[in-house]
């Protein structure tokens, strides 16, 4: 398969028809001017990206540009920031500054970003993932969606009385949910006698259900494809520990994050808290899944720079969309 990545005109002296145009000295001058208020490493990363098209350099450029627009006294937050750092709440970036960031990123990375693509970028991680997907020509990550119980019930293969999610939010990089132990769950009558305790196996099930919801609502797919609910099954779990007895009245805060996704396996890490208390940790929960043809095709990709190879289906295997997203 990697051999197929070679452009069909390799070995001839015809110029490569597509791909980024060569990085000329005047481009470097313009780039230096555009990034004059960014750190030298930002400039270096941008030069490397423009010369090689290697998307590995993108996060450094994006963070460098964001840093330039953040008030100096807030920049320290970016130093060891995780992808969870919020643009508005943590960095004081308003929508106009966001546009300034976008315009500079567009200029530096030679790409085009549409207004409606910006609205869902809430964290530094969102921005990095977004730019990375654009550069690689991958489907754009879906925005964080907040799903009420009606929506969850409509899409999930599990149904009451065996559905353990009351509400959930799903992004391309994580899913969070809540479940309140009502005390009416039928199994509590026998688990245990006169002492209703949420079974640990059911808590693991609840995390698994959140992972299913992620696969259906959050996971990046291939163009024209969607994950079929009928194809999702549990395959295994590792490192499961229960830390706290959970009883009726407790509200379980569930969260899962994808760790690896390579068809047909998706592996997640998960945790449940009750308030601030750790209840359950699962180092790995693995599900199988498969694609079917989507009813509604996903949005077209409009990044103008697509590294060679990713353009044609027979070219080198593109990393699976999620990998690209979570590696960003």
């Amino acid at each position, binding site marked *: 398969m990697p051999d197929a990545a070679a452009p069909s005109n390799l070995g001839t002296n015809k110029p490569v028809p597509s791909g980024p145009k060569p990085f000329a000295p005047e481009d470097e001058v313009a780039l230096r001017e555009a990034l004059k208020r960014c750190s030298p490493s930002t400039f270096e990363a941008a030069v490397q990206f423009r010369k090689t098209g290697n998307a590995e350099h993108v996060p450094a450029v994006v963070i460098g540009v964001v840093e330039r627009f953040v*008030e100096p006294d807030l920049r320290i937050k970016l130093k060891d920031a995780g992808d969870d750092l919020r643009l508005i709440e943590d960095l004081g970036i308003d929508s*106009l500054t966001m546009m300034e960031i976008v*315009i500079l990123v*567009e200029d530096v990375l030679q790409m*085009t970003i549409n207004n409606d693509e910006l609205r869902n970028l809430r964290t530094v991680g969102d921005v990095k993932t977004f730019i990375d997907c654009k550069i690689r020509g991958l489907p754009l990550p879906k925005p964080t969606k907040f799903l009420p119980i009606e929506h969850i019930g409509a899409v999930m293969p599990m149904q009451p009385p065996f559905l353990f999610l009351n509400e959930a939010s799903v992004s391309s990089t994580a899913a969070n949910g809540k479940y309140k132990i009502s005390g009416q769950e039928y199994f509590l009558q026998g688990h245990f006698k006169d002492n209703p305790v949420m079974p640990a196996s059911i808590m693991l099930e609840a995390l698994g259900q959140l992972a299913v919801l992620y696969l259906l609502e959050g996971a990046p797919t291939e163009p024209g494809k969607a994950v079929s609910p009928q194809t999702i099954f549990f395959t295994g779990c590792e490192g499961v520990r229960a830390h706290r007895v959970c009883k009726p009245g407790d509200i379980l805060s569930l969260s899962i994050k994808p760790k690896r996704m390579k068809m047909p396996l998706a592996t997640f890490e998960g945790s449940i808290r009750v308030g601030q208390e750790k209840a359950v940790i699962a180092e790995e929960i693995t599900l199988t899944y498969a694609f079917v043809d989507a009813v509604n095709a996903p949005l077209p990709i409009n990044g103008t720079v697509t590294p060679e190879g990713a353009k044609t289906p027979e070219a080198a295997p593109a990393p699976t969309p999620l990998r690209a997203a979570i590696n960003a």
Partner: protein
Amino acid sequence: MPRVFITGLGFVTSIGNDAPTVTRNLRELRHGFELYPPFQKPDIPCKVVGTIKDFTTDSTDPEDWTFPARYKIKRELLRSMAPNGLFAQCAMLQAIDDARLTEPDISNSVTGLYAASGGSPYLTHYHHERLLKVGVMRCSPLGIVASIVGTLNFNLVAAFKIQGASCGFSSACASSAHALGYAFDDISLGRQKRMFIVGAEDGNVDAILPFAGMRTLSLQTDPNLASRPFDAARDGFVGTGGSTVLVLESEDEVVRRGVQPYAEFLGWGQASDGYNVAISHPGGSGSAASIANALRAAKVAPEAVDYVNAHATSTLIGDISEARALRSIFNSPATRPLVSSTKALTGHGLSLAGAMESGFCALAMREKFIPGNAHLTTVDPECSGLNLPRTTENRAANIMVKNSSGFGGANVALVFQRA
């Protein structure tokens, strides 16, 4: 009707960036002119500008600008400003300090801000050029609010969290005089208790040079001779920029806060020539009518006026027209007020002029002097019959009139009394 007082001033002008410096230069008749480097080219006929010192705003990127270190302005504010916005921001800070206003005094429903600038032709040009060159989607999202007329009020109202009346005035060289007049009305009608009046202009190539096309700029190469209002040898005006901010307050606020006002603002008037888009009425009819209206509104007899700060910009037609207007109002030789044009020192600040020169009047009242006519050697016979002192008089004027005129024959007169 609540009385209205001037309680605070801020200056960024060609003759000084603070009230003490401005006062000294006014009193000593020291001008702020220089050979302006961007004009020293063969294809640019005019050479002299009333330059703003200690500021550099010759980049289209506000983050390149330099200004005195005592002003701390965040990028968040700077990014949407034109050069005139920077000048005004600094003048605002001075005026707030001078009037001893606290944050709650500034941000409330009875404190407003009226502003006047010609916008920023400089940034308009830059952003439009960029639009054509790189496409609209690569243009700064703040290009518009930094450029268009109104940039001053947009920026300052947001920066100082003004919650009362806010508006921009656009009557060319009468703009900030209009702003003062309407601010007076708002306070005397009880709508507002306090108003900031801001005049500002970029004062750079794009703001000044277009007037050369109209042949109204002085072509003098000697900064000491370029601006000579009422002089027979005058040959046009000298451009300038900068900003002046005045704080107007109602009497009850003056009392409540226990501040000593510079002057009382007695009233104002306006009238239009109805004559020509750019040429003053030869007889000064509109200007005379506006002064008459102002004096009537202020309940001041012409004989009671001690000093008129004239609009006189040093143009051939304008100065004569104004001289005729002044002669028709102040027609008794025994009681003629002193008349001078401080544009001989500063140059013509366009939209800024009315506010800047009203600020000068306030300073002169408090400091008890009347500025003379700098650079006036031979009075144009057409401008005779006015009491034009060559030197500064060290006495307090009781009543001053600030006279202003703008394109389209808009005329405004403001009447101040020593407080």
